């Protein structure tokens, strides 16, 4: 029943813009590192680059998170867990693919245990290229996602 109330609330046209604003500026990310962009994930969340300025901070439980950073390559063993993590997160949720490896397999294009591009298993919203991308590029990725969310469900 609560679900119904939530859905009907979200469908109110007038509140749409406000809701989009709230979603865009409060993207909490999951603690799941899949590849070697991990230290840059740390760097962007911590001092100096500090994405909390834009409301994006790593949050311990995935039940409240809205954002997965797919940090680098995804192995076949990890792919299952990544999918599970994505499915456990509540709607609405977003995915940012970080690095060449997450986009297309990158350096590991011929590896026997790496998934060739994370879009084979998850719907990706923003791609950030680089190997690894600099924290500034991560921030740009977050900003692009925010712009995308701000337009969600509104007339074009």
């Amino acid at each position, binding site marked *: 029943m609560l679900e119904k109330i939530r859905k009907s609330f979200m469908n109110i046209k007038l509140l749409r813009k406000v809701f989009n604003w709230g979603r865009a500026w409060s993207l909490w990310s999951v603690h799941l590192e*899949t590849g070697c962009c991990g230290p840059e994930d*740390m760097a962007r969340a911590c001092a100096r680059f500090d994405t909390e300025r834009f409301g994006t901070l790593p949050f311990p439980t995935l039940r409240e998170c809205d954002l997965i950073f797919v940090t680098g390559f995804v*192995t076949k063993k990890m792919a299952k867990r990544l999918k599970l*993590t994505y499915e456990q997160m509540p709607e609405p949720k977003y995915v940012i693919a970080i690095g060449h490896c997450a986009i297309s397999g990158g350096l590991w294009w011929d*590896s026997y245990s790496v998934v060739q591009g994370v879009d084979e298993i998850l719907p990706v919203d923003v791609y950030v290229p680089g190997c*690894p991308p600099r924290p500034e590029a991560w921030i740009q990725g977050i900003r692009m996602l925010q712009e995308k969310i701000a337009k969600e469900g509104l007339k074009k």
Partner: protein
Amino acid sequence: MSVMKLSMGPQHPITGHFRFILDVDGDLVLKLEPDIGYTHRGIEKLAEKRTYLQNLPVIERVNSYCDSAGTMLGYLEAIEELMGLEVPERAKYLRVIAAELNRIASHLYAACLFSVATGLETMLMWPINDRELVLDLLEKLTGQRITYTYQTIGGVRFDMPEGFKEEALKRLDYLEKRTEDYYKMLLWNHTFHMRTKKVGILKPSDAIKLGVVGPNLRASGVKVDVRKDEPYEVYDKFDFSIPTGKNGDSYDRLEVRFKEVEQSINILRQALKDIPKGPIKKWAPPIVPKGEAYTRVEAARGEFGYYIVADGTMKPYRLKMSPPSFRNLIALPHLCKNVPLGDIPVIYISLDLIPMDVDR
């Protein structure tokens, strides 16, 4: 009370790419079984398909986490040993500078992970902020933040940029001063002592028996360092000491890392002072003569071994890596027997295991 199976990771705030299967009884962990392989890319197989030069970026990403410069040295050492190639002196110094800067960055990263494990978020941010200073230096030297491909067969790719020396010395001074803050904030913190002292004690005999390497072995009081035992590059020209711990507990493992940072600063100062003028690269043939070589280097997390079998072509016949984290991994189930659940993150982080390194 019955024993509960608890699965920790890979989606868990502390475990990174690992998964632990814990046997938990109340708040007591009876047994820990690591489940690894979440970052296995098969680098050893891929290396057989690529040429020696193409392998550089691939091998670097074994430990692109923090320590790619230190990791790469061993591979280059092995190839140069097979070729009988003598690298120019200046290139050797530059390699050492990159590797030692990387060691500082890696140890700072370890320190910040450590404070996360105990729940002190402030000390997560401070070392990361100072690590950025080191990464800036490395970026100036090599052009990248964490994956450099700076050292190459026969030397290095770029010379030191102008003004690098002065900048580096300034930042090293700052880092040295800053270490005092870390001691005040973390290492002399009473609560931190309560959490880390006498937690996860690794006896020297056990450490040797299990084949633990690097700072973890030195924290147990065993004085083993490849830089001293069989000096590679120009490490025999520097005057530095090997810090060792006394008790081999988690606290010692962190303290040894901090002392190593001080030693690295020491080495870097000497290297920046003595660096000779000259060429930075020597031409190397693409084909490596037939033979085999086993080389070891001291990466930030410990001894990194490379075993190369060359069959006289442009590609290695077999490349075996023996990374430090894979060898330290065995200490984790050994230490996590009958410990409180709260100590699991502390012990895990104190060993400074990097999943990339374990899985390759």
